[in-house]
């Protein structure tokens, strides 16, 4: 065993690892998916896979907000940003995501008015300061960030601001999990559930995973011990033949979520019939759009966007990585043509992306262990 980065509770981690190993049935292989990119980051940073027996594989899921934004939406955003009357505002994570003609950073360097913000409320302030320009917020993220966009829209409405709008790319985690469960590419034994998303949606939305698919889910915190503890809880369920939703992160995640946040999302946004996810294809009812009542704040209605579907670069295997079919180092361009400085795919852009996390922590020399399908044969999950 190799410990990449000793952390303060390494002894406890070893004790948990021993308990996990004791639960493994001889000859059985276990595949557990950590849905959230924050968990992926912790796993790589601390080399948690090295604490686990070889029969347990951690599969990295789609829970990285910028990773799942398809090329076509980046191009649409660039189209909006290029309008002289528009100031585009975006989280820093989104700035390097490549579209078919470069990223926000590239466009900004070429003179387009794109500004990096920490919060949608910062976009609101820019709108107040620039009454003669339309300030568009590039809204991305799962249910962790959707409430912030919703609350900002409500605030803008209350103030009567008429020059603030949202280019809404919010996605919802449950349909993506369902698409992965329905995908023939991968057989999973259980899920390490996302922590912060669950702060908003609670644990109930995962109940179908236990009920309909007989897979256990443990909602987990972000520290190394949280993740090992959650793996132990999953392995206990598997050993007992149980499939339940458990909450390891109950010190932060309420079972019913944050009702104020859910109300704010419900007031301002509604489900789209379908949305394209990078690598996963079109998934029904998997993303949010602005409700009619707030049409005046919907950048897609205020301005026309091309809305063209753009295929990912051929060399990029982010789709397989996002579905957990390939490990980052199994991608043909990982660490060579595709690096955090010059990313080809989104998984190399965000610190929550599996490829960037893996690259940054120097864990590039690994042998293929996942049961990967040949490159190019994936991309069918959840197509509808």
């Amino acid at each position, binding site marked *: 065993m190799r410990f990449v980065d000793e*952390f*303060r509770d390494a002894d406890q981690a070893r004790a948990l690892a021993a308990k996990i190993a004791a639960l493994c049935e001889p000859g059985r292989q276990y595949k557990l998916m950590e849905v*959230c*990119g*924050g968990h992926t*980051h*912790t796993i790589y*940073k601390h080399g948690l896979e090295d604490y686990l027996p070889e029969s347990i594989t951690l599969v990295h899921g789609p829970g990285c*907000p*910028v990773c799942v934004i398809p090329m076509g939406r980046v191009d649409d955003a660039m189209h909006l940003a290029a309008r002289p009357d528009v100031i585009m505002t975006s*989280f*820093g*994570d989104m700035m390097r995501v490549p579209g078919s003609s470069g990223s926000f950073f590239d466009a900004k360097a070429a003179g387009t008015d794109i500004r*990096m*913000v*920490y*919060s*949608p*409320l*910062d976009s609101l*302030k*820019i709108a107040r300061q620039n009454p003669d320009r339309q300030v568009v917020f590039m809204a*991305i*993220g*799962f249910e*962790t*960030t959707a*409430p*912030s966009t919703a*609350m900002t829209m409500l605030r803008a409405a209350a103030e009567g601001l008429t020059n603030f709008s949202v280019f809404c790319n919010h996605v919802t985690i449950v349909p993506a999990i369902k698409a992965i469960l329905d995908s023939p590419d991968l057989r999973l034994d259980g899920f390490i559930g996302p*922590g*912060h998303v669950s*702060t*908003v949606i609670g644990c109930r939305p995962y109940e179908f995973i236990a009920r309909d698919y007989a897979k256990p889910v443990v909602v987990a915190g*972000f*520290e190394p011990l949280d993740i090992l503890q959650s793996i132990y809880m999953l392995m206990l369920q598997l050993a007992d033949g149980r499939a339940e939703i458990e909450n390891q992160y109950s*010190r*932060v*995640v*309420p079972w019913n979520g*944050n*009702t*104020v*946040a859910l109300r*704010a999302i419900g007031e301002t946004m509604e489900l789209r019939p379908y949305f394209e996810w990078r690598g996963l294809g079109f998934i029904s009812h998997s993303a949010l759009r602005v409700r009619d009542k707030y049409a005046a704040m919907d950048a897609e209605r205020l301005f026309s966007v091309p809305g063209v579907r753009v295929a990912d670069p051929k060399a990029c295997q982010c789709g397989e990585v996002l579905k957990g079919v390939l490990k980052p180092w199994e991608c043909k361009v990982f660490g060579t043509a595709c690096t955090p400085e010059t990313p080809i795919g989104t998984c190399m852009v*965000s*610190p*929550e992306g599996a490829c960037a996390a893996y690259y*940054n922590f120097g864990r590039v020399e690994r042998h293929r262990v996942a049961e990967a399908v040949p490159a190019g044969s994936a991309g069918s999950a959840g197509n509808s």
Partner: protein
Amino acid sequence: MCLGIPGEVVELHPEQPDLAKVNVSGVKRLINIGLLADDPPKPGEWVLIHVGFALSKIDEAEAAAAMAFLEGIGQAYEDEIKALQESLIE
């Protein structure tokens, strides 16, 4: 972006009840606490902050653990704190 950053509530905004000043690693900034309207935090209490909004209340021990974890992850945390410092929320 998805990092939850712990902050201690320093004071509530005198005129806007959904805003509060928080202290994050010595950086004091205004954040929105509207998502905790059902149980608003008081000065001295800790919250987990996402993109300028407090998403949940946490206790001091959880805040300390979360901060130790964040400081350990390096660049991504430094970028988030830098972004928070440059934030214009009002």
